[in-house]
C-alpha cells in the first residue's frame, strides 16, 4: 500500500458517503507531527460543527503536491473534505462556500501561516487571499478574500 492508493481510498470514501443533513461534515487533516498550530485549526473547525480526523504524517509535501497545491502556495497542513483539498488556515465561511458552490477545481489554499488566521496566534494584519488550485497545471486564481 502506498500513499497514492491510500489517498485515493480516502477521497473515494468521502465522496461516496454523502452525510445526512444533521451529520457533521467529515474532514481528514494531514499535519506535520510536530506542528501545533494545525491542532488549533482542527479545534476551530470542530467548534464550527465539522468532524475532523487529524493524521500526523511526514509526507505532507507529497500529499499537498499530489492534491494540486503548488509548492509556493502551501499552507502548513492539508485537509480533504468531499474530495476537495483545503490547504492551510482557511476561514470556515470560505470552506462552506467551497462545499456549497462545488466548483470544478481541486481545492483551495491559504498560503503560509498568516498571523491572525484561524488557529494561528497574533492579530490579523492583512487581507487573507485564498487561491483556487487545479491539477491541470494552470496557475492558481483568487477564489476568495477575507
Amino acid at each position, binding site marked *: 500500500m502506498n*500513499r497514492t492508493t*491510500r489517498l485515493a481510498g480516502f477521497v473515494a470514501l468521502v465522496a461516496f458517503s454523502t452525510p445526512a443533513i444533521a451529520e457533521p461534515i467529515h474532514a481528514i487533516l494531514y499535519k506535520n507531527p510536530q506542528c501545533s498550530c494545525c491542532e488549533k485549526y482542527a479545534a476551530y473547525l470542530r467548534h464550527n460543527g465539522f468532524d475532523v480526523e487529524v493524521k*500526523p504524517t511526514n509526507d505532507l*509535501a507529497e500529499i499537498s503536491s499530489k492534491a494540486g497545491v503548488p509548492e509556493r502556495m502551501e499552507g*502548513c497542513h492539508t485537509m480533504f473534505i468531499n474530495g476537495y483539498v483545503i490547504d492551510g488556515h482557511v476561514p470556515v465561511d470560505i470552506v462552506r462556500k467551497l462545499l456549497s458552490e462545488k466548483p470544478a477545481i481541486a481545492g483551495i489554499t491559504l498560503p503560509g*501561516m*498568516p498571523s491572525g488566521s484561524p488557529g494561528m496566534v497574533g492579530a490579523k494584519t492583512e487581507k487573507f487571499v485564498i487561491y483556487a488550485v487545479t491539477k491541470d497545471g494552470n496557475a492558481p486564481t483568487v477564489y476568495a478574500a477575507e
Partner: protein
Amino acid sequence: MNTESNTRVSRRSLLQAGASLALIRALRSRPVRADVPNGYRIVAAPTRASLAGLGNPQTEVWAYNGTVPGPVVHLRQGEPARIVIENRLEQDTTVHWHGIRLPNAMDGVPGLTQPPIKPGESFTYALTPPDAGSFWYHSHANSLEQLGRGLAGAVVVEERVPVAVDRDILWFLADWRLTSEAHIASGFGNQMEAAMSGRVGNAVTLNGMVSEEEPVRAGERIRLRLVNGSLARIMALRFEGHRPVIVAIDGQPCEPHEPEGGRLLLGPAMRIDVVLDMQGEPGRRYRVIDDFYDGLSYWLTQLAYGEKPPLRRHPLDAPLNLPRNPSPDPDLVTAERHELTLQGGMMGGGTMIGMGGMMGGGMMGMGGGAAWAINGMSMIGDGHAGMEPALTFQRGRSVVLSLRNQTAWWHPMHFHGHSFRVLTRNSAPVPHRQWQDTVLMAPRDTVEVAFVADNPGDWMLHCHVMDHQVSGLMTVLRVA
C-alpha cells in the same frame, strides 16, 4: 532470500500501514576492509541500490564505491590516513569527515576550507584521527540532495587496545523519501519543509536496506555502533526486552549509562555506541522500535535470536568503559562565554527582528531565501568563500557556548573540527561526561557546551537537519 522477501511484504505493510512506505530487506554483508591500512580510494558516482531489498525495484542513488552506504572507512587512532575522493558525479562535491578532529584544510567545506572537487577531479584527504570511535563521512556540497541521494558512509577509528566484546556491529541508519516505484522523490529544498522539520522520508534503511531482522546469539555481548545518516529524521530507539548501555556518544566515550526511559535519542548526524548483552531467549525475536514522532511509530528491525544455546550463562563481567580520548578539558573558570541564539522557522512567534517567524502574512523561507538565522544572521547553502566568522577565539582559549533554541523545532547542532563537552541542558547539569560534536536541541532548549579552541581555522557550526542548514541555520567560528 527472495522467496522469503515476498512473504514479508504483506506483513510489513500491515504493520507500517499509514506510517511509511512498506519495504523490506534481505541480509547483506558488511563492506570488506581495504587491504592497505589507512589508505582508501573512494569514487562518488551514480549507481543503483536495492534499498527495498532484493527482488524489489532498485533505486537510482549517488554512492561512494557503488554501495549505499559507502564502504566503512577503518582507521587507526593516531595513525596517518590518506583517502582519495574521485568525483564522477555531474556536479561539484566535497567530503566532510564528521566528528574527526583534523586540519582545517581537510574538513571538506566547499569554499571555506577547500575548492570543491569538480566532476572528473580528485582530492586527497590526509588526516590523523586523534580519537578512537564511531564517526562518519558525507558530502558537504549540495548536501541536501547529495546526502539525500546516498553520499554517506561510516568511519570507524579503532582503539589501540581492542574492547572486550564478542561482536562489533555497525548499523548505518538512513532515511529516504521514496515514491511508490522506489524512486527517490524529487522536491529537495521544499520551502515549507525547510521552515518545519525538514525532509523526513518514508523508508528507513539499516546498512543500505530496509531490515526485517538482524541475527544475534544468546549470551553474546555486542558493541553496536548506531549512526543516524538521515537528512532530517530524528530517531528514538527502544530495544524490546533489552537494556542497551550507552558507552560513547558521537565517537567520544562517556560514563556507561542506560538512556532515560530506555530510549536512545539519535538526531541526524549523531552516533551512539551501546553495549548490548543478549539476554533474550534463543529462537525469539525482539523488535527495535522508533517512536520519536507522535503517532508514527514503526519498527526498524528485529533482533533475531538463533537456536544455538547461550554463549555464556551470565553476562560478560568485563568493564564497559571505553578508553578515554585525548580531548583537552576546557578550563571553565577562565573560559570566555558567548551566546548563539537559533531563530526562525514556522511558528517562530516573530522572535526575529525584521524577519519574524510570521511576517506580513507570509513567513520566513516562503520567499526563497532564509528560513532560519543564528544571532540574526542567516548563512545559507553548503559553504562558500568569504563567510565572515560570527566569533573569533584566540587559539588555546577555553570557550563556553550557550546555544539557545528560540524556535519551535528540533535542531541537531554540529560543530566542525572540535568535540565539545555538554555541560548543562536548561540549567541542569548533564551527567555521564558527555562529549559530542552534534547536540540535539528540543524546541526552546538552552544547552551549554564547552571546548578548548585548539584547532586553527574557520569552522562551521550548523544544524544537521540539512534543510535547516541550507536555509540559514549556520554560522562560522574562527580559531585564530
